């Protein structure tokens, strides 16, 4: 049974006309949204001169055409529900379309009893305002998108709130869908995930469009909090339509002895920028940052990361792989920062680009800023093409060139997915990659 919230869209029209004025959000939050709007208006539009936007095609960031979303028809809801197929089994599920909640499959009674909170954001704002206020956008967007984080805050109307209490491990993944319906619509997805001490949780987000080509804007922010000893896995499967501009700003806070892993698979969108900030604030914390981008046609994927080692004895490991065909472009701007006194840091960062055409362009800016000693930090960046010997080997086994190429590319990308060590999600992501190549 679909649970539909009764959002009243007070203002339809351009997203640039002002903040969302939603009457059913608490007044204190609306106040914050108005402040965020002022901030958005005052911050300058990014230019390539800015190091955080170097190489980016900033001309694509024209927000003028995008509108706030009108209500959905019953047909839309039915279709969206029908096509929201991801994993076979999940602990809980939320489906959003045009920032409206289409369906919520609540977590089991047992999990609920043990203290798991799984709510739409606007309800958590009221019912768990202490947790909400403590963690909602508590980390500043420092990787270049402060302006768009402000835009997100000004327009966010719903999203997912997950709280996993101390010591509880949720076996099955929590699944979230965000859909874009109609041309030039905008969505502002939000996930606020708090895993308390020693808790364990996996979340997968699917970003999809109803039409293959409809232009749209997605401007999302995720706050992922791994409490002491907690284990958080976040997976994003981004399959927006080919004309969507997507900006995703993720921040992860890793407390002592906690472990956070994120995997971002990007296959859709015209311009897709994803910023991942991982802050290691407690000793023994570990953060794994994984990403795969399959770039074709004129797609541009723009990844910016920061592994921020604040406490001693923390470790982080980043592996980003891009396969580029046609006239696609990718940008990787990553930084390992070891703050003063964060001794015994062990950090790694690797980006690998596989160029499949003469017009593809891969830009890599792996960076290190080390302000402590007694550290082990390495990074590597490579750009190359399919190994001729490997291709030859496969062809001598009777595999046609095209198939052999595809095998080698998926094999190249598979290394990242295997790191996730979650066969069910891995299979799903693998299928998405195959589909992208088949298209």
């Amino acid at each position, binding site marked *: 049974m679909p649970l539909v919230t009764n959002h009243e869209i007070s203002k339809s029209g351009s997203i640039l006309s002002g903040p969302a004025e939603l009457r059913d959000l608490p007044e204190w939050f609306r106040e914050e949204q108005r402040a965020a709007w002022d901030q958005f208006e005052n911050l300058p539009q990014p230019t390539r001169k800015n190091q955080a936007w170097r190489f980016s095609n900033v001309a694509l960031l024209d927000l003028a055409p995008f509108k706030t979303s009108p209500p959905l028809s019953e047909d839309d809801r039915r279709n969206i529900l029908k096509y929201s197929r991801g994993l076979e089994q999940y602990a809980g599920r939320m489906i959003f379309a045009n920032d409206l909640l289409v369906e919520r499959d609540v977590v089991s009674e047992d999990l609920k009893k043990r203290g798991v909170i799984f709510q739409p954001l606007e309800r958590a704002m009221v019912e768990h305002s202490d947790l909400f206020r403590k963690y909602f956008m508590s980390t500043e967007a420092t990787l270049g998108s402060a302006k768009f984080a402000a835009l997100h805050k000004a327009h966010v109307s719903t999203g997912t709130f997950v709280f996993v209490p101390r010591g509880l491990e949720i076996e099955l993944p929590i699944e979230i869908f965000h859909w874009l319906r109609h041309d030039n619509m905008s969505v502002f997805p939000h996930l606020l995930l708090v895993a308390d001490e020693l808790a364990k949780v996996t979340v997968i987000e699917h970003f999809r469009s109803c039409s293959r080509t409809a232009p749209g804007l997605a401007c999302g922010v995720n706050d992922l909090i791994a409490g002491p000893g907690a284990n958080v896995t976040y997976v994003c499967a981004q399959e927006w339509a080919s004309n969507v501009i997507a900006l995703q700003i993720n921040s992860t806070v890793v407390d002592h002895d906690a472990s956070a892993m994120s995997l971002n698979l990007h296959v859709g969108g015209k311009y897709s920028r994803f910023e991942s900030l991982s802050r290691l604030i407690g000793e023994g914390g570990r953060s794994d940052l994984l990403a795969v981008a399959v770039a074709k046609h004129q797609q541009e994927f723009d990844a910016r990361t920061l592994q921020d080692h604040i406490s001693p004895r923390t470790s982080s490991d980043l592996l980003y792989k891009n396969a580029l065909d046609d006239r696609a472009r990718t940008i990787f701007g990553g930084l390992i920062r070891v703050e003063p006194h964060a001794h015994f840091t062990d950090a790694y960062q690797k980006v690998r680009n596989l160029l499949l055409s003469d017009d593809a362009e891969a830009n890599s800016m792996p960076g290190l800023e080390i302000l402590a000693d007694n550290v082990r*930090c390495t990074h590597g960046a490579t750009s190359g093409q399919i190994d001729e010997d490997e291709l030859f080997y496969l062809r001598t086994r009777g595999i046609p060139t095209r198939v052999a190429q595809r095998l080698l590319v998926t094999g190249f990308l598979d290394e990242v997915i295997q790191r996730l060590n979650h066969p069910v999600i891995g299979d799903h992501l693998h299928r998405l990659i195959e589909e992208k190549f088949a298209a």
Partner: protein
Amino acid sequence: MKTETTAINIDRGKGDFFYPEAHVRDAGIGLSERTIHYIADVKEDPDWVRDFRLRALKTFWEKPLPTHWASKELEAIDFDKIRYYLAQGTEPKRSWEDVPEDIKRTFERLGIPEQERKFLAGVEAQFDSEAVYSNIKKAVGEQGVIFVGSREGLKNYPEIFRPWFAKVIPVGDNKFSALNSAVFSGGSFIYVPPGVKVKHPLQAYFRINAENFGQFERTLIIADEGSEVTYMEGCTAPKFNTPTLHSAVVELVALKGAKIQYITVQNWASNVFNLVTKRGLAQENAEVKWIDCNIGSRLTMKYPGVIMKGRKARGEVLSIALANDGQHQDTGAKMIHAADETTSNIISKSISIGKGRATYRGLVHVPKHLKNCKNNTECDALLINATSRTDTYPAITVRGTGNAVQHEASVSQVSAEQIFYMQQRGLSEAQAMSLSVNGFVNDLVRQFPMEYSVELKRLIELEMEGSVG
């Protein structure tokens, strides 16, 4: 663990002395069109050079400081308090006897032995802005090699130097290349005729010896088809209380099949801003190799580059940086691949001591439709103290298939086990540390020409003296 180690105390006493100034020509303090005319008058520049300087001054004024990516320390430079030109009022000397006595004493104190000078092919010693001593060995001259100062080069050999002057590094490349283009004086202009292989390295020593005065030397080296030349540049400067600016422009042109090797050992005093633009152009089968050691200065910003314009051209940057208290060594390399089958190699090693900061910035660009281009980049950083800092900011653009680029960087500290092992064998901690640091740079130093690897080892030992204890 080495977190307790005190900052390495570098003995800068070697360059910490100066003699009374007796400048005959002095353009005064500050920068205006008048300064440019003054310099042009004194140097008897041809009109086109004067116009070039004036245009460059405009560009300099228009360009902002690159503080959106570079160190904010640049804002400490007060361009109105700098003396842009002064010289001894002497023509470059040909024989040792003509060199003024106090300058000879300066060289003596720096420990440049007379024998070394004789051994080296040509010693061009720059004292302040003008080359006061130039001794080109007869053999080099007989081979048809032109080895002159910037003024002489532009005035006497315009047909050779003018076509390439400011072509590799355009005036507007950056704010400091514009500044240099406006006020340059001194430096070396070298032309090596086709097929000539200059056996001995050409060498120049530079010194700054006037408070608040920037040195803006300009060097242009053209190696004609199939020729080979090695150029060495070494710097020391006395200590001053107010910041001194050094902003050079060095352009190298390696025509078909030529090889140029440019070696720098930079040991400016720790209040000098060293903002240098260096770039080489390599045509078909040519090779440009930069060997760069940065030990002194307050802030060095230097990213030697190679534009590989012809097929099978090769570019290489080998760089060592040592940053101590109050120092920021912001160095790196630029490799622009502009033809098929070009290869480039960057190896950078940095050591941060005390509160020193070493930064690597790199740019590797492989545009589309190029085939079989290869780049290899390796950056290793060594941190000695808990307060030391190191950064790496490479930027790599690759288009198309058929090209391969790899970049690797690592940061580590001196291994406690290594130190322990050496102490077991009876070495003091300081000796062990010095040995370990020398070991870190050894594989790079070994690639240097013999004379310089000896000198460099001596310099590093000197730097490490009294470092731990």
